[in-house]
Protein backbone atom coordinates (compact mmCIF):
# COMPACT_ATOMS: atom_id res chain seq x y z
CA UNK A 1 0.00 0.00 0.00
CA UNK A 2 2.12 2.83 -1.30
CA UNK A 3 -0.58 5.42 -1.94
CA UNK A 4 0.29 7.64 1.02
CA UNK A 5 3.77 6.42 1.79
CA UNK A 6 5.86 8.41 -0.63
CA UNK A 7 5.96 11.99 -1.81
CA UNK A 8 6.84 12.83 -5.37
CA UNK A 9 7.37 16.54 -5.08
CA UNK A 10 8.69 18.29 -8.18
CA UNK A 11 9.44 21.66 -6.63
CA UNK A 12 11.01 22.77 -3.38
CA UNK A 13 8.79 24.43 -0.80
CA UNK A 14 8.19 28.00 -2.00
CA UNK A 15 8.53 31.14 0.02
CA UNK A 16 4.76 31.51 -0.05
CA UNK A 17 4.23 28.08 1.44
CA UNK A 18 3.46 28.18 5.18
CA UNK A 19 6.08 26.19 7.03
CA UNK A 20 6.03 24.43 10.35
CA UNK A 21 8.75 22.81 12.43
CA UNK A 22 9.49 19.43 13.89
CA UNK A 23 11.43 19.89 17.14
CA UNK A 24 13.70 17.24 18.61
CA UNK A 25 15.42 16.53 21.91
CA UNK A 26 18.73 15.75 20.21
CA UNK A 27 20.49 16.73 17.01
CA UNK A 28 20.93 13.11 15.98
CA UNK A 29 17.12 12.66 16.14
CA UNK A 30 16.83 15.56 13.68
CA UNK A 31 19.45 14.00 11.41
CA UNK A 32 17.67 10.65 11.54
CA UNK A 33 14.40 12.38 10.68
CA UNK A 34 16.03 14.17 7.76
CA UNK A 35 17.24 10.86 6.36
CA UNK A 36 13.87 9.15 6.74
CA UNK A 37 11.85 12.05 5.33
CA UNK A 38 14.18 12.58 2.37
CA UNK A 39 13.97 8.87 1.57
CA UNK A 40 10.20 9.25 1.60
CA UNK A 41 10.43 12.11 -0.92
CA UNK A 42 9.85 15.11 1.31
CA UNK A 43 11.56 18.41 0.56
CA UNK A 44 12.73 19.94 3.81
CA UNK A 45 15.42 22.08 5.39
CA UNK A 46 17.46 21.77 8.56
CA UNK A 47 17.22 24.98 10.56
CA UNK A 48 17.78 26.41 14.02
CA UNK A 49 14.51 26.68 15.91
CA UNK A 50 13.31 30.21 16.74
CA UNK A 51 15.09 31.72 19.74
CA UNK A 52 12.19 31.13 22.12
CA UNK A 53 12.32 27.40 21.44
CA UNK A 54 16.07 26.85 21.71
CA UNK A 55 17.76 24.85 24.46
CA UNK A 56 21.32 24.83 23.19
CA UNK A 57 22.72 22.62 20.46
CA UNK A 58 19.43 22.55 18.54
CA UNK A 59 18.43 21.48 15.07
CA UNK A 60 14.89 21.32 13.72
CA UNK A 61 13.23 20.41 10.43
CA UNK A 62 11.10 22.85 8.48
CA UNK A 63 8.57 21.64 5.96
CA UNK A 64 5.18 22.78 4.67
CA UNK A 65 2.47 22.69 7.33
CA UNK A 66 0.19 20.83 4.98
CA UNK A 67 2.58 17.89 5.05
CA UNK A 68 2.78 17.67 8.83
CA UNK A 69 0.51 14.69 9.41
CA UNK A 70 1.98 12.47 6.72
CA UNK A 71 5.52 13.30 7.67
CA UNK A 72 4.80 12.65 11.33
CA UNK A 73 3.44 9.21 10.45
CA UNK A 74 6.59 8.43 8.44
CA UNK A 75 8.74 9.40 11.43
CA UNK A 76 6.64 7.41 13.85
CA UNK A 77 6.80 4.33 11.61
CA UNK A 78 10.58 4.70 11.47
CA UNK A 79 10.86 5.03 15.25
CA UNK A 80 12.27 8.57 15.16
CA UNK A 81 11.44 10.46 18.34
CA UNK A 82 9.91 13.91 17.78
CA UNK A 83 9.60 16.28 20.74
CA UNK A 84 6.96 18.52 19.21
CA UNK A 85 5.52 20.17 16.11
CA UNK A 86 4.98 23.93 15.89
CA UNK A 87 2.96 25.42 13.05
CA UNK A 88 5.13 28.51 12.83
CA UNK A 89 8.64 28.66 11.39
CA UNK A 90 9.17 32.37 11.90
CA UNK A 91 12.51 33.23 13.51
CA UNK A 92 14.42 30.18 12.29
CA UNK A 93 18.01 30.38 11.05
CA UNK A 94 19.74 28.39 8.34
CA UNK A 95 22.76 26.24 9.08
CA UNK A 96 25.91 27.91 7.69
CA UNK A 97 26.87 26.46 4.32
CA UNK A 98 30.18 28.26 3.87
CA UNK A 99 32.95 25.86 2.81
CA UNK A 100 36.56 26.90 2.12
CA UNK A 101 39.77 25.01 1.44
CA UNK A 102 43.48 25.47 2.16
CA UNK A 103 46.13 23.68 0.11
CA UNK A 104 49.07 22.55 2.23
CA UNK A 105 50.86 20.79 -0.64
CA UNK A 106 50.70 17.13 0.38
CA UNK A 107 47.54 17.82 2.38
CA UNK A 108 44.17 19.46 1.74
CA UNK A 109 42.29 21.18 4.56
CA UNK A 110 38.56 21.81 4.17
CA UNK A 111 36.71 24.16 6.51
CA UNK A 112 32.93 24.06 6.89
CA UNK A 113 31.76 26.71 9.33
CA UNK A 114 33.58 26.06 12.58
CA UNK A 115 34.85 22.56 11.59
CA UNK A 116 37.87 21.35 9.62
CA UNK A 117 39.11 18.11 8.11
CA UNK A 118 42.61 17.51 6.72
CA UNK A 119 43.34 14.79 4.18
CA UNK A 120 46.56 13.48 2.65
CA UNK A 121 46.01 13.99 -1.07
CA UNK A 122 47.94 10.97 -2.31
CA UNK A 123 46.14 8.42 -0.17
CA UNK A 124 42.85 10.01 0.89
CA UNK A 125 43.80 9.33 4.51
CA UNK A 126 42.27 11.70 7.06
CA UNK A 127 45.19 13.03 9.09
CA UNK A 128 43.32 15.52 11.28
CA UNK A 129 39.94 16.88 12.25
CA UNK A 130 39.63 20.07 14.27
CA UNK A 131 37.37 22.87 15.41
CA UNK A 132 34.07 22.64 17.19
CA UNK A 133 33.29 22.23 20.84
CA UNK A 134 30.62 19.57 21.24
CA UNK A 135 31.58 16.25 22.87
CA UNK A 136 31.18 14.16 19.72
CA UNK A 137 34.08 15.99 18.05
CA UNK A 138 36.91 14.26 19.97
CA UNK A 139 34.99 11.01 19.44
CA UNK A 140 34.84 11.63 15.68
CA UNK A 141 38.52 12.56 15.73
CA UNK A 142 39.36 9.14 17.17
CA UNK A 143 37.01 7.38 14.74
CA UNK A 144 38.19 9.12 11.56
CA UNK A 145 41.87 10.04 11.83
CA UNK A 146 44.21 7.52 10.24
CA UNK A 147 41.52 6.09 7.94
CA UNK A 148 40.74 6.78 4.28
CA UNK A 149 37.76 8.92 3.32
CA UNK A 150 36.17 5.99 1.52
CA UNK A 151 36.39 3.57 4.43
CA UNK A 152 34.73 5.58 7.19
CA UNK A 153 31.06 6.28 7.85
CA UNK A 154 29.91 9.81 7.26
CA UNK A 155 30.48 12.04 10.31
CA UNK A 156 26.78 12.82 10.52
CA UNK A 157 26.05 9.12 10.86
CA UNK A 158 28.49 8.83 13.77
CA UNK A 159 28.06 12.21 15.44
CA UNK A 160 25.26 13.70 17.48
CA UNK A 161 25.58 17.48 17.33
CA UNK A 162 25.70 20.48 15.05
CA UNK A 163 29.50 20.34 15.18
CA UNK A 164 29.24 16.79 13.82
CA UNK A 165 26.93 18.03 11.08
CA UNK A 166 29.40 20.73 10.06
CA UNK A 167 32.24 18.19 10.04
CA UNK A 168 30.10 16.11 7.71
CA UNK A 169 29.93 19.03 5.30
CA UNK A 170 33.70 19.36 5.37
CA UNK A 171 34.01 15.61 4.81
CA UNK A 172 31.67 15.73 1.80
CA UNK A 173 33.67 18.55 0.25
CA UNK A 174 36.94 16.69 0.82
CA UNK A 175 35.44 13.64 -0.90
CA UNK A 176 34.30 15.80 -3.80
CA UNK A 177 37.70 17.46 -4.22
CA UNK A 178 39.87 14.37 -4.14
CA UNK A 179 39.61 12.31 -7.30
CA UNK A 180 38.47 8.77 -6.79
CA UNK A 181 37.41 9.32 -3.21
CA UNK A 182 33.74 8.46 -2.79
CA UNK A 183 31.92 9.43 0.40
CA UNK A 184 31.34 6.48 2.69
CA UNK A 185 27.80 5.34 3.31
CA UNK A 186 25.91 8.17 1.66
Amino acid at each position, binding site marked *: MALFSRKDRKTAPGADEALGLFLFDAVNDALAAEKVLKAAGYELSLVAPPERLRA*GCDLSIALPRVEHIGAERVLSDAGVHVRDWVADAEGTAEVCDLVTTVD*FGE*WLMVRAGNMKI*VVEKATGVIV*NTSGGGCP*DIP*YLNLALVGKRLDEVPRPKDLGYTLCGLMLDRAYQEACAQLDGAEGGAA
Partner: protein
Amino acid sequence: MTLLVIATYPVVDGPVLEGPVTIEPSGTIAIGGTRVPSSQGTSAMLGAAAQVATHLGTPPPHALVAGDIGRGDGTRHVYERLLDTVERIRPSVIAFHYMQPVMALMRKAVEGLAEVAPDALLVADAGGMYAAKAAGLASRFELMTPDVGEVGFLADPKVTHPAYVSHYLFGNEGFDPVKLAASAHETGGAGRVLLIKGVRDHIALEGEIAEVVDEPCVPELEAIGGTGDTVAGLASAFLAAGFPTVDAARCACLANREAGRVMGATPAMHASDLVATLPGVLADNLCSWGGACVV
Protein backbone atom coordinates in the same frame (compact mmCIF):
# COMPACT_ATOMS: atom_id res chain seq x y z
CA MET B 1 46.18 28.35 42.83
CA THR B 2 44.33 25.37 41.54
CA LEU B 3 42.82 24.99 38.11
CA LEU B 4 39.68 22.86 37.88
CA VAL B 5 38.71 21.72 34.37
CA ILE B 6 35.22 20.38 33.84
CA ALA B 7 34.69 18.56 30.59
CA THR B 8 34.04 15.22 28.89
CA TYR B 9 36.14 12.50 27.30
CA PRO B 10 35.24 10.51 24.17
CA VAL B 11 34.27 7.12 25.58
CA VAL B 12 30.74 5.68 25.38
CA ASP B 13 29.29 5.46 28.91
CA GLY B 14 32.69 6.37 30.40
CA PRO B 15 32.43 6.86 34.18
CA VAL B 16 32.96 10.11 36.02
CA LEU B 17 36.66 10.65 36.66
CA GLU B 18 37.97 13.20 39.10
CA GLY B 19 41.45 13.93 40.31
CA PRO B 20 44.79 15.49 39.50
CA VAL B 21 46.01 15.36 35.91
CA THR B 22 49.27 13.61 35.13
CA ILE B 23 51.17 12.96 31.90
CA GLU B 24 52.68 9.52 31.56
CA PRO B 25 56.08 9.11 29.83
CA SER B 26 54.24 7.95 26.69
CA GLY B 27 52.32 11.23 26.64
CA THR B 28 49.04 9.64 27.71
CA ILE B 29 46.92 11.80 30.00
CA ALA B 30 45.61 10.30 33.23
CA ILE B 31 43.01 11.74 35.58
CA GLY B 32 43.25 10.49 39.14
CA GLY B 33 45.36 7.66 37.73
CA THR B 34 42.88 6.62 35.01
CA ARG B 35 44.00 7.06 31.41
CA VAL B 36 41.82 8.90 28.90
CA PRO B 37 42.11 8.64 25.10
CA SER B 38 44.54 10.97 23.41
CA SER B 39 42.76 13.13 20.83
CA GLN B 40 41.89 16.72 20.13
CA GLY B 41 39.73 18.20 22.86
CA THR B 42 40.09 18.01 26.57
CA SER B 43 43.07 15.63 26.69
CA ALA B 44 45.05 18.20 24.67
CA MET B 45 43.88 21.01 26.92
CA LEU B 46 44.78 19.09 30.09
CA GLY B 47 48.16 18.08 28.71
CA ALA B 48 49.15 21.67 28.03
CA ALA B 49 47.88 22.84 31.43
CA ALA B 50 49.79 20.06 33.17
CA GLN B 51 53.03 21.05 31.44
CA VAL B 52 52.65 24.63 32.67
CA ALA B 53 52.03 23.46 36.24
CA THR B 54 55.09 21.21 36.13
CA HIS B 55 57.23 24.01 34.76
CA LEU B 56 56.06 26.60 37.29
CA GLY B 57 55.89 24.23 40.24
CA THR B 58 52.21 24.92 40.86
CA PRO B 59 49.61 22.25 41.74
CA PRO B 60 48.65 20.07 38.78
CA PRO B 61 45.32 20.81 37.13
CA HIS B 62 42.39 18.99 38.67
CA ALA B 63 39.82 17.52 36.27
CA LEU B 64 36.20 16.49 36.61
CA VAL B 65 35.15 14.64 33.44
CA ALA B 66 32.79 11.92 32.24
CA GLY B 67 32.42 9.90 29.06
CA ASP B 68 30.28 11.62 26.44
CA ILE B 69 30.22 11.12 22.68
CA GLY B 70 27.71 13.85 21.98
CA ARG B 71 24.59 12.49 23.64
CA GLY B 72 24.95 14.79 26.64
CA ASP B 73 24.90 12.02 29.26
CA GLY B 74 28.43 12.60 30.53
CA THR B 75 27.89 16.33 30.48
CA ARG B 76 24.93 15.92 32.84
CA HIS B 77 26.93 13.70 35.20
CA VAL B 78 29.69 16.29 35.38
CA TYR B 79 27.32 19.14 36.14
CA GLU B 80 25.72 17.04 38.90
CA ARG B 81 29.09 16.70 40.64
CA LEU B 82 30.39 20.19 39.95
CA LEU B 83 29.45 22.09 43.11
CA ASP B 84 30.52 19.29 45.47
CA THR B 85 33.88 19.14 43.74
CA VAL B 86 34.35 22.90 43.87
CA GLU B 87 33.55 23.03 47.58
CA ARG B 88 36.17 20.36 48.22
CA ILE B 89 38.92 21.55 45.84
CA ARG B 90 38.46 25.31 46.24
CA PRO B 91 39.86 26.14 42.79
CA SER B 92 41.00 29.64 41.89
CA VAL B 93 40.15 29.06 38.21
CA ILE B 94 37.33 26.92 36.79
CA ALA B 95 37.51 26.11 33.07
CA PHE B 96 34.54 24.73 31.11
CA HIS B 97 35.66 22.79 28.07
CA TYR B 98 34.20 20.10 25.74
CA MET B 99 30.64 19.73 27.01
CA GLN B 100 27.20 19.48 25.44
CA PRO B 101 26.09 23.11 25.17
CA VAL B 102 22.92 22.91 27.26
CA MET B 103 21.90 26.37 28.39
CA ALA B 104 19.83 25.29 31.39
CA LEU B 105 22.71 23.29 32.86
CA MET B 106 25.14 26.16 32.41
CA ARG B 107 22.74 28.63 34.05
CA LYS B 108 22.33 26.40 37.08
CA ALA B 109 26.08 25.84 37.32
CA VAL B 110 26.99 29.53 37.14
CA GLU B 111 24.34 30.41 39.72
CA GLY B 112 25.67 27.72 42.03
CA LEU B 113 29.28 28.78 41.56
CA ALA B 114 28.39 32.34 42.50
CA GLU B 115 27.35 30.92 45.89
CA VAL B 116 30.10 28.41 46.59
CA ALA B 117 33.07 29.96 44.78
CA PRO B 118 32.33 33.65 44.20
CA ASP B 119 36.01 34.55 43.75
CA ALA B 120 36.92 31.81 41.28
CA LEU B 121 37.77 33.05 37.80
CA LEU B 122 35.69 31.34 35.10
CA VAL B 123 37.16 30.32 31.75
CA ALA B 124 35.22 28.91 28.80
CA ASP B 125 36.29 27.26 25.58
CA ALA B 126 34.57 24.83 23.19
CA GLY B 127 31.06 23.67 24.22
CA GLY B 128 31.41 25.38 27.58
CA MET B 129 31.81 28.67 25.74
CA TYR B 130 28.87 27.92 23.43
CA ALA B 131 26.62 27.26 26.43
CA ALA B 132 27.81 30.30 28.38
CA LYS B 133 27.20 32.64 25.46
CA ALA B 134 23.90 31.08 24.40
CA ALA B 135 22.63 31.27 27.97
CA GLY B 136 23.49 34.98 28.17
CA LEU B 137 26.16 34.40 30.81
CA ALA B 138 29.31 35.28 28.88
CA SER B 139 29.99 38.45 30.85
CA ARG B 140 30.35 36.36 34.01
CA PHE B 141 33.49 34.79 32.53
CA GLU B 142 37.00 36.11 32.96
CA LEU B 143 38.38 34.53 29.78
CA MET B 144 36.98 32.99 26.63
CA THR B 145 39.12 31.51 23.86
CA PRO B 146 37.23 31.53 20.53
CA ASP B 147 38.81 30.84 17.16
CA VAL B 148 37.96 32.82 14.04
CA GLY B 149 34.99 30.55 13.40
CA GLU B 150 33.64 31.21 16.88
CA VAL B 151 34.19 34.91 17.55
CA GLY B 152 31.45 35.72 15.04
CA PHE B 153 29.16 33.52 17.09
CA LEU B 154 29.99 35.46 20.25
CA ALA B 155 29.32 38.71 18.39
CA ASP B 156 25.92 37.66 17.06
CA PRO B 157 23.34 37.94 19.83
CA LYS B 158 20.74 35.95 17.92
CA VAL B 159 22.52 32.62 17.52
CA THR B 160 23.06 29.78 19.98
CA HIS B 161 25.67 27.77 18.09
CA PRO B 162 28.50 28.64 15.65
CA ALA B 163 26.86 26.48 12.97
CA TYR B 164 24.23 29.21 12.53
CA VAL B 165 26.59 32.16 12.18
CA SER B 166 26.11 34.30 9.10
CA HIS B 167 28.75 34.00 6.40
CA TYR B 168 30.23 37.42 6.73
CA LEU B 169 31.18 36.81 10.31
CA PHE B 170 33.52 33.94 9.64
CA GLY B 171 37.25 34.16 9.04
CA ASN B 172 36.90 35.10 5.40
CA GLU B 173 36.29 38.19 3.35
CA GLY B 174 35.32 41.11 5.52
CA PHE B 175 36.27 39.30 8.71
CA ASP B 176 37.42 41.80 11.34
CA PRO B 177 38.28 40.41 14.78
CA VAL B 178 38.68 43.91 16.20
CA LYS B 179 35.09 44.83 15.35
CA LEU B 180 33.80 41.43 16.37
CA ALA B 181 35.51 41.60 19.76
CA ALA B 182 33.97 45.02 20.37
CA SER B 183 30.56 43.85 19.22
CA ALA B 184 30.71 40.71 21.37
CA HIS B 185 31.54 42.84 24.39
CA GLU B 186 28.78 45.39 23.69
CA THR B 187 26.13 42.72 23.23
CA GLY B 188 27.13 40.70 26.29
CA GLY B 189 28.50 37.81 24.25
CA ALA B 190 32.08 37.95 25.53
CA GLY B 191 34.02 37.27 28.68
CA ARG B 192 36.06 40.12 30.19
CA VAL B 193 39.04 38.94 28.14
CA LEU B 194 38.82 37.27 24.74
CA LEU B 195 41.71 35.32 23.26
CA ILE B 196 40.83 35.07 19.56
CA LYS B 197 42.91 32.28 18.01
CA GLY B 198 43.89 32.75 14.38
CA VAL B 199 46.70 33.49 11.94
CA ARG B 200 47.12 36.54 14.17
CA ASP B 201 46.00 35.99 17.75
CA HIS B 202 44.04 38.95 19.13
CA ILE B 203 43.60 39.46 22.86
CA ALA B 204 40.76 41.81 23.75
CA LEU B 205 40.17 43.32 27.17
CA GLU B 206 36.57 44.47 27.65
CA GLY B 207 36.12 44.78 23.91
CA GLU B 208 39.38 46.64 23.16
CA ILE B 209 42.36 44.90 21.57
CA ALA B 210 45.14 44.77 24.18
CA GLU B 211 47.64 42.50 22.43
CA VAL B 212 48.25 40.99 19.01
CA VAL B 213 50.53 37.94 18.71
CA ASP B 214 51.56 36.87 15.22
CA GLU B 215 55.07 35.43 15.60
CA PRO B 216 56.28 32.86 14.99
CA CYS B 217 53.78 32.24 12.19
CA VAL B 218 53.08 28.51 11.77
CA PRO B 219 50.04 28.12 9.46
CA GLU B 220 50.12 24.33 9.81
CA LEU B 221 48.94 24.64 13.41
CA GLU B 222 45.43 25.44 12.19
CA ALA B 223 45.23 22.02 10.56
CA ILE B 224 46.25 20.12 13.68
CA GLY B 225 43.27 19.11 15.79
CA GLY B 226 43.62 20.26 19.39
CA THR B 227 46.02 23.16 18.98
CA GLY B 228 43.26 25.55 19.99
CA ASP B 229 42.67 23.35 23.01
CA THR B 230 46.33 23.58 23.99
CA VAL B 231 46.09 27.37 23.88
CA ALA B 232 43.09 27.22 26.21
CA GLY B 233 44.96 24.87 28.55
CA LEU B 234 48.05 27.06 28.60
CA ALA B 235 46.07 30.23 29.29
CA SER B 236 44.00 28.58 32.03
CA ALA B 237 47.10 27.23 33.75
CA PHE B 238 48.93 30.57 33.59
CA LEU B 239 45.82 32.24 35.02
CA ALA B 240 45.68 29.71 37.86
CA ALA B 241 49.36 30.41 38.55
CA GLY B 242 48.46 34.04 39.18
CA PHE B 243 49.33 35.69 35.87
CA PRO B 244 47.14 38.69 35.01
CA THR B 245 44.63 37.49 32.44
CA VAL B 246 45.99 39.37 29.43
CA ASP B 247 49.52 38.16 30.25
CA ALA B 248 48.24 34.62 30.65
CA ALA B 249 46.62 34.82 27.22
CA ARG B 250 49.68 36.36 25.59
CA CYS B 251 52.08 33.79 27.04
CA ALA B 252 49.70 31.02 25.93
CA CYS B 253 49.71 32.28 22.34
CA LEU B 254 53.49 32.63 22.30
CA ALA B 255 54.10 29.19 23.82
CA ASN B 256 51.73 27.46 21.41
CA ARG B 257 53.27 29.14 18.37
CA GLU B 258 56.83 28.51 19.51
CA ALA B 259 56.01 24.85 20.17
CA GLY B 260 54.64 24.60 16.64
CA ARG B 261 57.85 26.07 15.27
CA VAL B 262 60.14 23.89 17.38
CA MET B 263 58.33 20.67 16.48
CA GLY B 264 58.33 21.53 12.77
CA ALA B 265 54.55 21.30 12.57
CA THR B 266 52.94 19.59 9.59
CA PRO B 267 49.21 19.07 9.02
CA ALA B 268 49.65 15.38 9.83
CA MET B 269 50.99 15.95 13.36
CA HIS B 270 48.90 15.84 16.52
CA ALA B 271 48.26 17.95 19.59
CA SER B 272 50.17 15.41 21.68
CA ASP B 273 53.29 16.33 19.68
CA LEU B 274 52.82 19.94 20.69
CA VAL B 275 52.23 19.04 24.35
CA ALA B 276 55.46 17.01 24.35
CA THR B 277 57.35 20.03 23.03
CA LEU B 278 56.11 22.45 25.69
CA PRO B 279 58.59 21.73 28.53
CA GLY B 280 61.53 22.88 26.44
CA VAL B 281 59.63 25.83 25.03
CA LEU B 282 58.61 27.05 28.50
CA ALA B 283 62.10 26.52 29.92
CA ASP B 284 63.73 28.44 27.09
CA ASN B 285 61.30 31.32 26.73
CA LEU B 286 58.79 32.00 29.49
CA CYS B 287 61.05 34.35 31.49
CA SER B 288 61.82 36.42 28.42
CA TRP B 289 58.13 36.70 27.51
CA GLY B 290 57.57 38.56 30.75
CA GLY B 291 55.69 35.81 32.52
CA ALA B 292 56.89 34.40 35.81
CA CYS B 293 59.93 32.11 35.65
CA VAL B 294 58.76 30.09 38.65
CA VAL B 295 55.97 30.62 41.14
